[in-house]
């Protein structure tokens, strides 16, 4: 059975984290996921556009939903922030016919209308619930057996939970399930549901570094060899700013941070360079070497 979605790449995967896009494309076929990319989709607004202009921000999401609806497909996101923003937008649009009508009026000149028939699903959720962990395990060629991996959810894929409706925001399990399915051991730590600080990192760097530094340090102290996140904005904070965070929390963190599809790809035997790990600022070499050393081992 093929699972088909309208792929909403979001900005980061087309911008500062191209390795997320690359690694997504490298693995989804093997998991039986087929996509049509929404090439004319815009930014979701990231919660930032809404600060100036709430209905404009809703219209950005509605426009994407209308494009997917026209294809008769649900939306697949690969960014936790996009997922959160679009889940909230979708709930608001579906729950308020007058609002939907106002927003649809904004889409009229492009001959687009959203009827409220689209669901928005993150790749993580699709892997857990629709592809299924059994299928994922079937595709694993190199179990990441000796690795301890710290899940880092990011805010918007968890909260507000009534908009997301997938994981328990106090006790999420989807990333842990995926980490176990690839044969690695999840690290349990309080910071896994906290904030990476990214939304204010450009203007309030000190606060943001204290936040992401504390989370990275807690994961590292818990024995993590690597971290995995379903959100590229968290990735930017945790990877690009890690050296500065190290100075802030006075610890040599040096903790590689993987995008979700990169972790899946490594376990599925995809070559590291096809997953774009060389683009990270915190080197992933050590992890890749340890995985390569297991390649010849029987599972």
């Amino acid at each position, binding site marked *: 059975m093929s699972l088909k979605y309208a792929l909403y790449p979001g*900005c*980061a995967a*087309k*911008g*500062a*984290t*191209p390795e997320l896009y690359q690694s997504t494309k490298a693995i989804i076929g093997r998991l039986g996921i087929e996509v049509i990319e929404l*090439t*004319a*989709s*815009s*930014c979701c*607004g*990231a*919660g*930032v*556009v*809404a*600060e*100036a*202009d*709430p*209905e*404009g921000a809703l*219209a*950005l999401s509605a*426009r994407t939903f209308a494009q997917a609806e026209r294809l008769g497909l649900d939306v697949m996101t690969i960014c936790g922030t996009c997922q959160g923003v679009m889940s909230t937008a979708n709930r608001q649009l579906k729950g308020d016919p007058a609002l939907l009508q106002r927003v649809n009026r*904004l889409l009229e*000149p*492009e001959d687009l209308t959203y009827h409220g028939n689209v669901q928005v699903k993150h790749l993580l959720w699709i892997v857990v619930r629709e592809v299924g962990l059994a299928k994922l395990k079937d595709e694993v060629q190199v179990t990441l057996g000796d690795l301890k991996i710290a899940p880092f959810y990011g*805010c918007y894929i968890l*909260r*507000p*939970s009534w908009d997301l409706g997938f994981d*328990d*925001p*106090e*006790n999420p399990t989807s990333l842990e399930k995926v980490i176990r399915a690839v044969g690695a051991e999840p690290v349990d730590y*309080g910071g896994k549901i*906290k*904030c990476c*600080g*990214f*939304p*204010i990192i*450009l*203007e*309030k760097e000190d*606060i*943001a570094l*204290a*936040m992401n530094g*504390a989370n990275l340090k807690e994961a590292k102290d818990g024995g993590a060899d690597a971290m995995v996140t379903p959100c590229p904005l968290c990735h930017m904070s945790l990877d*690009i*700013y890690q050296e*500065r965070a190290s100075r802030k929390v006075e610890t040599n963190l040096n903790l590689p941070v993987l995008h979700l599809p990169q972790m899946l790809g490594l376990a599925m035997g995809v070559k590291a360079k096809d997953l774009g790990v*060389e*683009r*990270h*600022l915190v080197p992933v070499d050590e992890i890749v070497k340890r995985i390569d050393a297991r390649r010849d081992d029987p599972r």
Partner: protein
Amino acid sequence: MRLAFTIRRYHPELDAAPHDETYRLDITRGMTVLDALIRIKNEQDGRLTFRYSCRSAICGSCAMTINGAEKLACRTSVRKEWERHGGINIEPLRHLPVLKDLAVDMRSFWGKVRAIEPWVRADHLPPTGPLSLPAGSAQFHNVDACIMCGACVAACTVHEVDQGFLGPAALAKAYRFVADPREDSTARTARLGALQGPTGMWDCTRCNFCVEVCPKDVKPMEAIIRLRRAAIQAGMTDTGGARHVVGFRDLIARFGRLNEALMPLKVVGPSLRRLLHVLPLGIRMLLKGKVPNPLHPPIEGVQHVRALLERARR
């Protein structure tokens, strides 16, 4: 059913450090965590300290950390917690000084609420006589439902690392007065102006924790976003936070997607010092192929995105 309750104990005059104690209790139908605490205090350990009063989620006294999240003990079901977490773990509110056991010092919380001057400032109104709101004019978006329990502040991820942050409760309260039609416009401008600096409205990361834990559906973060919108509309655009919002929106209107090569320049604004601070990371990103081409063509249909943002603004 008999369940174990693990409770964080701390008596600052006797204990070197906080420690956990476990109590076993037969639970009854519909029992709340507060019911259980009262039973434990009455039947097993009279020294156990916690605050409570109304037992009905009105007074806001019994907020505490239950299984890792901020909750009112009086409206938290023991059975549901057990089913959700497989245990009952009770700790005081986080990042507030512990007075004893589950009772925390709320002085910093109240100090911040006072700091935003939680009263209507209206010189034009008569000093005596009725001051009721004009019918149908107030839009507080449920902020006035706050019971000051402190759950949002304890859950706030910025407050965790910077206890100077005014925090969700006080900022939401500030919004309540910004939204009050009786307040003088000069007072409103001053109120917004006072929240532009460090520890004010732009320190929130929008992590949604306050929205998630609030027992009264106040959604403090949404009130903070409304404060920010009000500040931008009042022309207060000379902060990193405001430049972020306005610049982000401009880039979406121009390209349809965010251009991360240009975004930092928008936030940095006209400051060489700030530019030199972001530049080294920008260069490292460039070398790793992480800086998108600033001249990258816009998305298909960008003119529609631009037009809809324009129309939405009108």
